[in-house]
């Protein structure tokens, strides 16, 4: 579904991503770990096509199509959807208006998704300006709600657990699972047919208590330094911190040099 080949990205001529290689197949959910400032958000924003992030090398393929030169909305039309870590406040524009516009593009209406909006208590935000005065948890819920109604086939989540209290985190987890079409039925892990693909960037890994992932990657200093079992990597990071990953990687690098 998503294939990144030797991706280099710079901001104001400073290289931030230094040769990322990553593949996320259909129906797989991957976690992206990394300490603050390692380049996770730049990576996420580059996949989405934000123009301030200049690709200086490499390719991004989505369903075998190179999307390097596509605009943000063209990528959305292909089936990519994102939840931003810090979305802007859009003054004067009501959340309900944006939701209606997203639904209109799919030939649907707000009324048609009333079950979702009621379940997650989003209808009370419809008359509020987008993200204006929302708490951290409310911003995440609003972003997840917009993703759920857009229903993309590839879901990008940037720090869905940052600034969210434990109670709300469970709700966010439920929303993510619903948006990825992950059900809690026994044996679901074996039946991946309806599931969306996703990459979940998380610094704390807290959201992984609620969302199961197939694989995880650790990004350090603009490169994927380690990939493997999500649970194993998460436990290592929770137990020893990212310092452990850095040291581990340094020793591997040193051994390779020898």
């Amino acid at each position, binding site marked *: 579904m998503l294939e990144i080949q030797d991706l280099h990205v710079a901001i104001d001529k400073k290289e931030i991503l230094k040769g990322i290689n990553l593949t996320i197949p259909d129906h797989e959910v991957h976690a992206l770990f990394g300490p603050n400032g390692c380049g996770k958000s730049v990576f996420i924003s580059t996949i*989405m096509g934000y123009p301030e992030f200049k690709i200086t090398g490499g390719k991004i393929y989505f369903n075998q199509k190179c999307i390097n030169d596509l605009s*943000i*909305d063209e990528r*959305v039309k292909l089936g990519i959807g994102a939840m931003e870590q810090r979305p802007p406040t*859009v*003054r*004067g524009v009501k959340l309900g208006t944006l939701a209606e516009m*997203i639904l209109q593009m799919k030939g649907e209406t707000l009324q048609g998704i009333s079950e979702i909006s009621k379940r997650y208590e989003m209808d009370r935000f419809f008359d509020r300006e987008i993200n204006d005065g929302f708490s951290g948890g409310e911003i995440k819920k609003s972003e997840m709600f917009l993703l759920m109604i857009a229903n993309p086939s590839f879901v990008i989540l940037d720090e869905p657990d940052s600034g969210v209290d434990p109670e709300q985190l469970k709700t966010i987890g439920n929303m993510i699972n619903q948006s990825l079409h992950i059900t809690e039925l026994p044996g679901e892990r074996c039946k991946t047919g309806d599931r969306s693909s996703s990459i979940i960037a998380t610094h704390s890994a807290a959201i992984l208590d609620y969302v199961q992932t197939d694989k995880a990657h650790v990004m350090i200093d603009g490169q994927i330094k380690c990939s493997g079992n999500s649970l194993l990597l998460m436990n290592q990071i929770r137990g020893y911190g990212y310092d452990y990953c850095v040291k581990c990687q340094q020793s591997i690098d040193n051994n390779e040099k020898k």
Partner: protein
Amino acid sequence: MKKSDASHMDRLPVDFSKYKVLNKSDNRPDPFSTLSQDDYDSLKQVGLDMKRPPDMGRFLLFDHNPFFTISQTEGVEILPLPDAMNRYPWMMEKYYFKAIDRNMDEFTRQVAEGENQGYFIRVKKNVRLNHPIHTGFLIHTPQGLQNVHNIVVIEEGAHLHLITGCVSGKHNQEGLHIAVSENYVASNAKFINTMIHNWGPDFVVRPRAATIVAENATFVSNYYSVSPPKNIESIPYTHLEGNHSSAKYMTVLASMPNSYCDIGGTVLMSGENTSAELVARAVNYGGTVLQTGLLIGAAKGSRGHVDCSGLMLSDGGVIEAVPGLRATHPDARMSHEAAIGKIDMGEVNYLQSKGLSEMQAIALIIRGFLNIGVEVEGLDTELEQMIQQISELSGHGE
């Protein structure tokens, strides 16, 4: 060039001899039944649908020919001003050039001294209209000079929403519209005055308006302009004379290259516990906009706020926001805010990430910027279309 230099350079001396003085002709066909499709469309754009039966009454000044419907509602009068002056001689003493000094400037003098036309609308004591009265001013003749004098009297406890559309004929590029409007809002009355302008690119427009507001009365002024004239200066004046009276101005306009719009408002609060709010929004596509608002707190408990904001959507053009406060009483309390800037591309990118195209995102942000919470009864569709038009202008020309 400094912005202030640009704005003052654009002040335009008006050469009256350039324009044809429009006179009333006795055999003009009634436009209520014979209006051309072009003129009908022009008027409809500014809220006056001549094919729809009027709810509360209607007035149209076509060049210099007044046409009006007799209001079927008891307690409501709509007359051409000259007819009203003949019928009610006391108007001269009570209302005619009593809110505005006839010698205020060359334009008020032009109205006072030349043949003028306009409406007299009176809503009698405690009559509260459920629907708006629609009026329109159309300059059909090229280079015509329309010389207008309007008087509105809202008697004690009465309510009126007046919607006035000012427009040039579809193919008329040039003309001069001068209008003196005097409004008298008696105690406990409410007057909502919605004005919509849509002019040809070489028009010069000089409205001079004043409103006297008595005790416990409310005055609301909404102004919308989609297609600005070459040059307009309009600084309506409101005097909150009565205690506990209030005024609110909402101004929304789009500015185009080679246009100059000086639109503002002055409110004098001389009654005790009066309140005023001036809100202005300008979207600049390359013209010059001056947003001037002045509140004068001259009595105990007077409260006011001025809010001027502009969006610059072009590399050319000027927006100058001049929110002004003047206190002449120690208990007056007023505040102001002004903000001018470009569209935040972070917001555009964000909306694109939800699937909107760049143009859809920009239009939505502009709509949000222009959304100042005004709901104009009887004009929902037209206003919606107008705001849509302003917001979609960004998709053209670049």
